[in-house]
């Protein structure tokens, strides 16, 4: 029961209005500043559209609305695994897209999603005995490889600083598409990123070699050699002997003039 006299009620209302009135503009400005800061981190949050809402259903939508986005994405990811085990490739593709839209800055979804499509789905299509002929099987395989490549590339767009997406794209070009030039490009980019494993630095040169481009391979090995400081050359992981022997071999093969050789003797 409230029997507070009217004048006190008015005073209370005015005090509350004053507090909130002072705070509200500060709040809005501050929140806008936080939003800008998060945009600068390339973190754009999530804008739900109707299609996504339909795909998620009511329960998961509420989960996302209450700030449990990554957990929801993880649960959907479990479905990706199930779809893979059941060889439901189109369903798997849709789920991968959903996960990556939910968490575009979670590289593992792009990474694993691209791999699922470009490798597992495409190999599955190659072995699909329900297809009447080899041509259709290859066509289907190529379809999934392109899908996976697309996932990798969109992943790179969203997470350009994550080396693994670059190197996995390189791997896909190298092993599934036999496109060594592109593979060399992606390995090169991967090796330049922070946290990338050292061994990637040798991959571009090896790719040129696989492409039969001796000149390109030579230039790549040479560039690597020149990039390394004398101290680095002595470190085991840079594998000096391998670089040196390749340069020597290619200098012989391309008959580079002695004065221009790295190893003239």
């Amino acid at each position: 029961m409230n029997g507070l006299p009217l004048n006190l009620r008015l005073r209370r209302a005015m005090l509350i209005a004053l507090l909130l009135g002072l705070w509200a503009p500060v709040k809005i400005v501050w929140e806008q500043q936080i939003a800008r800061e998060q945009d600068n981190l390339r973190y754009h949050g999530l804008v739900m559209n109707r299609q996504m809402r339909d795909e998620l259903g009511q329960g998961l939508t509420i989960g996302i609305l209450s700030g449990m986005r990554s957990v929801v994405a993880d649960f959907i990811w479990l479905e990706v695994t199930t779809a893979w085990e059941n060889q439901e490739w189109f369903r798997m593709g849709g789920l991968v897209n959903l996960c990556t839209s939910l968490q575009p800055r979670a590289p593992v979804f792009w990474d694993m999603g691209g791999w699922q499509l470009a490798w597992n789905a495409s190999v599955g299509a190659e072995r699909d005995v329900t297809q009447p002929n080899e041509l259709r099987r290859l066509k289907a395989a190529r379809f999934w490889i392109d899908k996976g490549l697309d996932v990798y590339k969109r992943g790179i767009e969203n997470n350009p600083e994550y080396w693994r997406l670059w190197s996995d794209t390189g791997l896909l070009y190298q092993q599934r598409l036999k496109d060594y030039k592109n593979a060399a490009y992606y390995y090169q980019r991967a090796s330049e990123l922070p946290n990338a494993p050292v061994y990637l630095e040798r991959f571009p040169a090896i790719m040129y070699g696989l492409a039969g481009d001796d000149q390109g391979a030579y230039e790549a090995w040479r560039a690597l050699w020149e990039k390394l400081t004398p101290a680095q050359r002595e470190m085991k992981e840079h594998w000096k002997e391998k670089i040196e022997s390749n340069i020597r071999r290619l200098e012989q093969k391309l008959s580079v003039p002695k004065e221009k050789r790295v190893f003239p003797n």
Partner: protein
Amino acid sequence: METSTVAAPPLAVETIGLTKRYPLTWKRKVLVALDGLNLQVKQGEVFGLLGPNGSGKSTTLKLLLGLIVATEGEARVFGLPPESLEARRRVGFLPENPYFYAFLNGDETLRFYGKLCGVTGDKLDKRIEELIDLVGLQNGRERPLRSYSKGMLQRIGLAQALIHDPDLLFLDEPTAGVDPLGSAQIRDLILKLKKMGKTVVFSSHLLEQVQEVADRVAIFSLGKKVLEGSLESLLTENQSTQVLIPAEMNPEQQERLRKFIGQTGVNESEIRFTRPHLSLEQLYLRTVQAQPDFVSKDSPRP
């Protein structure tokens, strides 16, 4: 008497035209919980607020504690506004049917309230010992309050109200729901407090107990004070005199006595002979306390 200005010492409690109204929005009516109360309680008095449920006793106490705000009028406690910390430093309160924190034991409860009032260290330890002794809760110190009986709860309630040694105590229905033995103990406590010089204002609807402890009472009805005065003046029947003779008398003896009194000019036919009754409470207390193994101890609540 009600408008007398007291220079020193200030009154323990003074209200002037104290009124509390609650608007009942949906019924477009106003509930008058307390209507223009003028009340004065002197220091050292035991003052009883009497009246049926909903007559304004609790509202008065809440207003005197600053828990609610008066619609009109004014209340003063030792000349101070009741919501001021200074006033509350001198006031102790036992609410109606208190439960307290069931998860604390008796000791912890008193310690909590003591610290809250700024009593600390050795002083607090000593105070707790005193109070436990005063209210007779030696067996409740280590027990959580959830296992306390009603009477024990009231007594720990009294102890917490006294923890900061206040000069004025407000007790809201201190004996409600307590068995006769327990309520007799509480009554004795109030008398002890009076001897210590405390002012006690309490509300009750159990009239017999009020009669035994209160110096003055005010009777409330429907938010209004309808009667006030000392018990002595309110309860004496001036038209008759009682003589108590601690012996049984046979009819013949009675007749002789009647005649003897008749000689003083009293109309003989109006003299009646009866035997005084024990009150049921007195009987109960005598019986229970006469048990050989009786110690003042409470059984836990079921």
